[in-house]
């Protein structure tokens, strides 16, 4: 934990934030490319802050912080990716139906037993 580390972490975070902002503000990318780029920029900034502000890399063995962090990340991915995956599929599959059709469809599914 030194001043240099905090300054490096701060400057890197600032640059990553501004990059993401200018990408969106000036419409430099669109669609999937933009989503992936912004996602990667956020993840890189997360790693920078974990390393330089939360000192996750300085931890001595046994690395309890890193272990609990990894476990949390696993659960987090299941919750977030799982929810988006299932609900988007559901929306996609129900998109073309009228409300009456949806009701009929769900009744048929229920009669099948699931």
């Amino acid at each position: 934990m030194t001043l240099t580390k905090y300054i490096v972490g701060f400057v890197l975070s600032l640059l990553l934030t501004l990059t993401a902002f200018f990408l969106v503000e000036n419409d430099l990318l669109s669609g999937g490319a933009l989503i992936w780029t912004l996602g990667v920029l956020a993840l890189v900034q997360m790693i920078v802050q974990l390393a330089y502000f939360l000192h996750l890399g300085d931890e001595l063995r046994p690395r309890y912080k890193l272990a609990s962090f990894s476990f949390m990340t696993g659960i987090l991915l299941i919750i977030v990716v799982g929810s988006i995956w299932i609900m988007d599929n559901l929306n996609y599959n129900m998109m073309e139906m009228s409300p009456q059709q949806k009701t009929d469809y769900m009744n048929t599914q229920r009669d099948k037993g699931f």
Partner: protein
Amino acid sequence: MSELIEAQKARLYRTTIGFWVYLMTDCLLFASLFATYAVLRTATAGGPGAADIFELPLALTETIILLVSSFTCGLMLLGLQAKNRRQVIVAMALTYALGVAFLAIEIGEFAKFVAEGHSWQQSAFLSAFFTLVGTHGLHILFGLLWLVVMLVVVVRRGLTPKVTRQLTIFGLFWHFLDLVWIFIFTVVYLLGVAS
């Protein structure tokens, strides 16, 4: 004497690990709210979508204010390490001022949405937005209350081992809130305005 210092170090280590585990469970709270927001982001029920109401420059200002406050919080931890009470107090005051500025902008934004008729009652998208961003704001509010209490304690008692432990976990809490905000800025504001 050195035994005492060792015992205090061990205690600081245990406190830090315990608080870290709390932060991980807090991450899961935010994960659930992020998942909810992601699922409901298009459920606008005829009301405005993300691109219609969010102002990116305002969100960028909030992001930078919080990042600077995370940095001043780091200066507080460095002052703690150097046993420099003056630096600790100045850094705490700066962190507090920046935290208040952040919260003021956020409350102003919420008030503007509600005044325009876009409250959490209008659509599932807005409910998810207010819950996610509001929960983060509530964390900031409690962090600020914690900071005021600690400021009084530092002024009155100085940097005792107990105060050092308490300020160390406050530092973790504050850095963690900045980390969560990166994802709110990216997912809610940047991706919301872009799509």
